[in-house]
């Protein structure tokens, strides 16, 4: 049986919010019996774009990525208390019955991802339904991927084995896998969100003038082992990316026994760090 998944590429998201807005458009003022009752006119964000900034000016990056109901295969919201209220379709989509769920505010707290939303007016817990009502009418994909201008959101309907194979091949990740919920939204380049970098800039004096130090080899060490080597760019900038936060004491040093002001530097980064400017000695 082929099932629906979303594949999100963090690097391709420009935060245009078209996905967020079409979900508002689709469910604002519209009742789709058997699928979803109308979304509240204000505030509701069933499908939203998150932001992550790393570093400090001037060495930073900022990433955006959509999040929504993950349509988990072992969904924490699906349990004895929600039997008959929350169902999982054969195509993987999780629906909260808009009639039977009436008054069930308790369901909101069951989602560890925070993607079940309380509709106060209708007294209903609600989720992003993967536009199941449209897929059932023959739409080829949900609106969120259809309106994405860059292909940052891709809707994929494949067998679970094929999806698992693709996830492994492309290094796709799901959010908070430790929960064991088996989410159906996969992320590419999620390192941009949950990994950190250490960066800095190097300058040197040439002919009495301060210049960016290009082409200098910089090393990153962890626990006495050299983890990586990089070379400064035109602007004298270097960056080691993809590090786990709080993963130990790192040391940044120059190769070939060169030294710079402030280097070598030792640090235990919990977030991305810009070491600032170091002048070569």
């Amino acid at each position: 049986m082929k099932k629906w998944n979303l594949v999100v590429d963090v690097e391709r998201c420009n935060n245009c919010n078209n996905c967020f807005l079409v979900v508002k458009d689709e469910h604002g003022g519209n009742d789709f019996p058997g699928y979803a009752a109308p979304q509240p006119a204000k505030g509701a964000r069933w499908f939203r774009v998150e932001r992550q900034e790393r570093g400090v000016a001037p060495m930073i990056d900022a990433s955006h990525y959509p999040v929504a109901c993950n349509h988990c295969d072992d969904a924490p919201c699906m349990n004895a208390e929600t039997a008959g209220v929350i169902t999982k379709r054969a195509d993987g989509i999780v629906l909260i019955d808009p009639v039977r769920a009436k008054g069930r505010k308790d369901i909101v707290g069951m989602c560890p991802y925070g993607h079940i939303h309380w509709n106060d007016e209708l007294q209903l817990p609600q989720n992003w339904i993967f536009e199941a009502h449209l897929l059932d009418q023959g739409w080829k994909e949900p609106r969120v991927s259809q309106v994405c201008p860059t292909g940052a959101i891709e809707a994929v309907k494949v067998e679970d084995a094929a999806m698992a194979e693709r996830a492994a091949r492309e290094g796709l990740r799901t959010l908070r896998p430790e929960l064991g919920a088996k989410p159906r939204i996969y992320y590419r380049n999620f390192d941009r969100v949950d990994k950190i970098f250490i960066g800095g800039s190097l300058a040197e004096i040439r002919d009495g003038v301060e210049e960016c130090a290009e082409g200098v080899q910089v090393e990153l060490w962890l626990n006495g082992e050299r983890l990586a080597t990089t070379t400064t760019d035109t602007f004298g900038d270097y960056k080691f990316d993809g590090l786990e936060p709080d993963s130990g004491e790192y040391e940044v040093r120059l190769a070939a026994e060169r030294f710079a002001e402030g280097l070598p530097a030792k640090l235990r980064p919990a977030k991305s760090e810009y070491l600032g400017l170091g002048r070569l000695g």
Partner: protein
Amino acid sequence: MDMKSLRLKATLVGLTYLFRMKAKSSATFRAHLEKRDCVVQIRLKDNSIARYYVFEGGKVVSRSGLHPNPQATMMFKDVDTAVTLLTPPVNYAETVHAGKNFRVILMGDDEVIAWFMKLANKIETDGWRYGEPMSDGSIRYTQMTNGGPLHVYVKDDKIIRTNIVEFTDDDQCGWTMTARGRSFSPRKKGLVAPHALSMKANVYSDKRLLYPMKRVDFDPNGERNPQNRGKSGYVRISWDEALDIVSNEIVRQKQVHGPGAIALAHPSHHQWGNVGYYLSAMMRFGNAVGVTRVVLNPDSWEGWYWGAMHHYGNSMRLGATGGYGTLEDALQNCELMVYWSSDPESQFGAYAGTETSERRLWAKELGIKTVHINPHYCPTASFVGGKWLPIRPGTDTAMALAIMNVWIKEGLYDRWFIENRTTGFEEWKEYVLGVTDGVDKTPEWQAVETGISAREVRALAREWGRKKTYLGCGVNGGGFGGACRNASGIQWARAMVMLMAMQGWGKPGVNFGNLTTGAPVDLEFYFPGYGEGGISGELMATGSATNNYVRMPHLPSVNPVQQSIPRQRLPEAILDGFAEGYFLDPMAAENQMRPFFYPSPGYSKVHMLYKYGASYMSTINGSSRFERMYQSPELECVVSQAIWMEGETQFADVILPACTQFERFDIGEWSNSGGFGLHWTGQLNHRVIALQHKCIEPLGESKSDYQIFWDICKRLGLGTYYSEGSSEEDWVQRVYKSTDLPKHISWKKFLRKGYFVVPPETDGRKAGVDMRWFYEGRPKDLPEPYPLPAGYSGRFLHGLQTQSGKFEFVPNSLKRLQGNEDRPPVLQYTRAFEGPHATDLYAKYPLQLLIAHQRFSFHTAQDGKSSAVNDVLDHRVLKDGHYYHIVRVARGDAVARGIAHHDLVRVFNDRGSVICAADVTERMAPGIAHSYESSALYEPIDGPGTPDLGGSMNLLSPDRMQARGTVASAGSLCLVQIEKWERPEGLVAPQEQREFAS
């Protein structure tokens, strides 16, 4: 009796039967027939042939001869004219020609004529079928918006959804571009801007004006209480009363004060479409009535218009570049792309939606390096990454000078180009090197100004000098938007074109652009842009005369009132009774130097303001001036014709509720502005032309703008002149017929399907690359009719639109502008009047606030209307039931002020206070804050001067012009202080802002 007379007689008899037959077969025709009992006479001038039609209770009878008292008469000069005009289908060329030459005259009650013409037209139009039935029982219509084309799903006269248009096998679309061994193709769908996808919520916004209204204490025949505008509330009135008040006031103004007493003012943008646009239906109305125009400054182009064009021409583009062929050239040849105050991911090339976003990923895949020179690590920087140089706002020119300084000293510029294609370089060089003023413009010198280190600027200059570099400035890479709109905008834009000239502008891989423009669409397929005047018939103030007026026969219109007010100075004109302006006249670079004054000799001052749309409070700098203006007794009457209650609507005496474009017919092409923005369709992956269906009936009692203007005109006896008897759908068909569409898609199919994709350009027919002809010394080979033939100093099509025909480092046109030290021929870096060097002011207000073009709203159009856009996390923040505008604050500045993320803050200076939610971010350099202009709301807590909860950031911006002798606005940058703000006890948000569920 001759054959033609017999034929005419038969036609007149036959018409009766045609009406009856149609009434039998069509319920809508019958309904229209039943609306009116009247007598319509059709006759020849000498009465030799005459027949009248008696309409009563939905029945029609006709009799030969003259009726003693017809309500409407259609009189033909002679048999020939009558036969020609009465033979279907309507031949507009003949009809308009006959009308202009008094060979056909419509007389009588304008309402009856309008009704009868509609009845006659309905014989054909009643059979029109449009929209596609869907399997769920809805009908899918098509619309075109500022942000792109939409499919609109409607059921039971209610919009269910708006969605993008996905192209099908029926559409000839798609192209492939190869670069460095890779192939790239666009998606086969219309990629829209986010604001386009919030339109449904906009239509059903609780801010909609649904009924005509009158200010409670406005009595047109007694006390008018202008001082209470913005304070007293409104009472609902009937359309009859509203139209009576407005039309009577128009007459009163003209008779009491004389010509010029009525001013007509409008925003730059409203809805989309060639019929209902401000340059179309509104312009035609203004001309019919005779108005003092409130004229635009080039407010998104400023620096390019008042500065850059003097170096190289392009006055017809307001100093911006054409961008032809630059997408392919950049992908194939460019090695470095410098985004200088350029954020295409936020401003979408104005109208191009998100069509261009993926191209930036292509460039990334090709390894094109990127530098962002911008005080804000903007959405484009976030998206593409690269080196960020967080420059201090307003100092960009200093950095540009230092880059040129390095190039000169290290020989990193195109000497051949300088020698062969430019003039004045030696004089320029002496300034850059400090020979003339003793200040060598070194990287070290600029570091003090810009806050960017000398070493980084040197590195950038070398990288740029050695690599084939594209320079992206502003919204679409080669002109408007960005830093050209701050106090240093003229300097900056001048410096930008000089940078380009030093690198051999036009050679492969060296051009202006940020991948936003120059896609391979068929530019020669004719469809008029909005700048071509639509149905206005205005031949001077729009681009109508070139194509549109010739291709679509319609009556010309002329505004006899030669009095104008510069929009930047409208408050002063009213409050002080005087204003000085400079023309936005693209015909030649010199025309901008010509001053004009209000009042114009012999004309009345303005005492009635007819406002179309309502965006000034937040889009015009120093906007608290407008509040004072509106409360002036000089304005005896203020009319607002608007769709929504926006910041400015609340100051009107009479509100005329207009419907949205979803509630009326129109026709329009995506991103086709024509005029100054000729070929902006080249930003798109595909040209898409839409028949903009009327998707639902107008909400409440709202009416289309065209209908409102027509209704007022009817009361002035101008109804038939204004409308030519055409309804909006008739005009839509007239526009269709004037274009190249009929060669490709039948009216019937276009009407039903709703859109047409212009097939992409084939390889051998693509436009050349902008400026390549100039670089290579060939005659100009681009499909732009600019400059005008007389604009060439030398041989036609040879050289630029400058006196020398070359790029002028020291422009001759500015040399002739003597005595203006703000725009010296040799560019000088001067510090902005409102920046870190304004010592006293800076001590008080130590933060530079950038006020950029909106990202999630097209100006005020989608913002603040309880629509989905309010909930976009980067647009507004919901707090205590109120959606606050966002100000982005650097983390360090926030911490120093005890401000946490999403705290409410007061952003203020001597001009006013705006309450915002703080977005604490690393993406601002220290000392700099950022917010968007164009909040649709203006909600002072307690009257003028008190903090605005709506987010109208332009309350804080300076009304001073960038330079003397210009109306170059400087509103995108000002000094402010920001402090944490606590909501005063007992203060509640305006009723409509309160949220029903938290």
